[in-house]
């Protein structure tokens, strides 16, 4: 069920989710790729191959898979640190993503970024960012550049509901609305910021309901249902792309794992998580598709498995960055001149 909220009053309307043309097989593959990538990442974290902070989005795959299928390749994309799914759905190679997790020189960010900082500028995936809220204003800048230089291109910025409470959200939303920028604020509302339930951190926990403070429309979707995500993204993006200004899309979702690998999960019951597992977006689509063609499900599953195992092998086989390169690429040139100038 997609709810559309008026820019003036935040009053919701139910919008029919018209996605009859959606290829659910594609969606299954897209979601499964993310799921398996992350499960393997988690295993290799436990094995000491992956370090630092690792934030898995397991349970939330319908959001990145569904929304990304609606974005155009020329659209700008930025996400928070929970970025693996968005990177893969954007078309970043699993090999180079896994290599990034392993800290290898073949990684998407040359091993400099790690899990939280996947980027591929050639695909206009401008990166995952780890200061909560910080990338929201960067997105306004990208949207501004797009508006000036390439009408029709929009910026999509992904963040958690927890990030909507920091000042940066307010400044970004207000700037985008005042300047009428083509930007989709896409909120993955998984109900928690680390261990804090959204209602304990926000007086109005539904981020979509805050859009009216900026005169923006908003759409709310069930983020555990890829059809809903696609339907809502289509509506919201159509609005943004038309040049009428920014919008908020809020997907209610749930993470099955801890906030990061270090999370003791003292703040929620195991039962709550178990209950939510009945809504697993990957499992449920698989079940639905198996009823149509089991062999095809198995084939996709096997292909994805092979692809992800190959990514691990690639990451393992890749070299670490050479320590002599440590100080490369901090600034283009210390004297500030453009590269290549003498």
């Amino acid at each position: 069920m997609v709810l559309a909220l008026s820019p003036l009053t935040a009053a919701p309307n139910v919008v029919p989710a018209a996605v009859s043309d959606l290829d659910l097989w594609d969606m299954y593959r897209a979601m499964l790729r993310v799921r398996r990538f992350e499960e393997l990442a988690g295993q290799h974290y436990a094995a000491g191959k992956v370090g630092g902070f690792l934030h898995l989005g397991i349970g939330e795959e319908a959001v990145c898979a569904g929304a990304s299928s609606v974005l155009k390749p020329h659209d700008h994309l930025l996400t928070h640190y929970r970025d693996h799914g968005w990177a893969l759905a954007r078309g970043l190679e699993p090999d180079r993503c896994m290599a990034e997790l392993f800290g290898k020189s073949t990684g998407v960010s040359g091993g400099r970024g790690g899990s939280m900082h996947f980027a591929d500028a050639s695909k206009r995936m401008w990166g995952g960012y780890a200061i909560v809220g910080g990338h929201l204003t960067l997105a306004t800048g990208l949207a501004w550049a797009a508006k000036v230089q390439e009408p029709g291109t929009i910026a999509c910025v992904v963040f958690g509901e927890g990030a909507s409470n920091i000042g940066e959200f307010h400044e970004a939303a207000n700037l985008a609305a005042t300047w009428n920028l083509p930007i989709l604020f896409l909120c993955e509302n998984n109900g928690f910021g680390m261990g804090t339930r959204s209602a304990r951190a926000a007086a109005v926990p539904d981020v979509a309901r805050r859009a009216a403070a900026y005169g923006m429309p908003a759409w709310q979707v069930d983020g555990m249902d890829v059809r809903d995500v696609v339907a809502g993204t289509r509506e919201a993006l159509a609005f943004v792309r038309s040049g009428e200004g920014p919008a908020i899309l809020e997907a209610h979702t749930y993470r099955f794992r801890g906030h990061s690998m270090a999370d003791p999960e003292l703040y929620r019951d195991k039962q709550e998580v178990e209950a939510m597992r009945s809504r697993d977006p990957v499992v449920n689509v698989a079940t639905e598709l198996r009823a149509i063609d089991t062999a095809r499900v198995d084939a996709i599953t096997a292909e994805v498995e092979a692809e992800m195992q190959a990514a691990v092998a690639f990451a393992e086989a890749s070299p670490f960055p050479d320590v002599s390169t440590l100080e490369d690429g901090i600034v283009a040139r210390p004297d500030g001149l453009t590269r290549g100038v003498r």
Partner: protein
Amino acid sequence: MATLAAPPRTTTIRDAIRDTLRGEMQRDSRVVLLGEDIGAYGGSYAVTRGLVDEFGSDRVRDTPIAESAIVGAAVGAAMGGLRPVAELMTTNFALVAIDQIVNHAAKLRHMFGDQFGAPVVIRMVNGWGQLAATHSQSFDAWFAHVPGLHVVAPSTPADAAGLLRNAMRGEDPVIFIEHSRQYSQKGAVPDDGHLVPFGKARTVRSGRDVTLVAYSYTVPMAEAAADRLAAEHGIDAEVLDLRSLRPLDRDALVDSVRRTHRVVCVEESWRSFGVGAEVSATLQELAFDELDAPVQRVAAREVPMPYSKPLEAACLPGIDDIVAAVRAQIS
């Protein structure tokens, strides 16, 4: 007549901080804690674990992700008579709150003619561990630049307890710097009244040949380097733990250099415009004729911290670097 002090307990820095928070909360009902996930989650580094059960969620307050509001609310509450201790999870997030720290907390007392102050403790965690460029920083020298702040950084459980207690009982804002890799370090902690006034360095070990100036996580590094220097090179190094960066114990620095005539300062942030620069400038201002060799700085390479393990290791100062700096100075 001497009072009988309770025998010191052995505990970790994490527990020393928690015990001090607990003790002060029991002693003074005005003490409140606030920060992200310090309650139900137990604190990112488990420092506050259990306190919400003991004191309730009114005194141990989880906040939204809004560091500027955390510090601002803490400062305002302090003006209003509470004794807040704010946790910023990591120093990196202090940047979104730094206006509250520098333009508000540090200013109030003087700017309004000493009518009131902001007795607030702002705890923040330095550290690293493949956390990449935005999550591996420290800004110790920045805070130490600002009049109106106290800036302290313990390296032992005893100092963690004594400095924190001093901070919680004081009348002005204190930047209390912890280190994620030091929480499990153990040591003896004196009884509950133990106070460590700010501005006094601690001589960790005495030596004749060179002074290693350190604080926070670099203190155990300096100690290890001193061991190596003694065992492998016959060099007798003194180790000085600054403990407090503002005020800085200039007397202790000068005293030590009068004896050793050589100084190596060890810090974890970027080398230029860091803590070592101030130590170096201070020593040559106050003890120019005592220095037999330039003050050496051992610090991080000037790179946004990379995620990849070998790169990160190459970025950070290590025991080898300290040993090499000392040997370069002495040979």
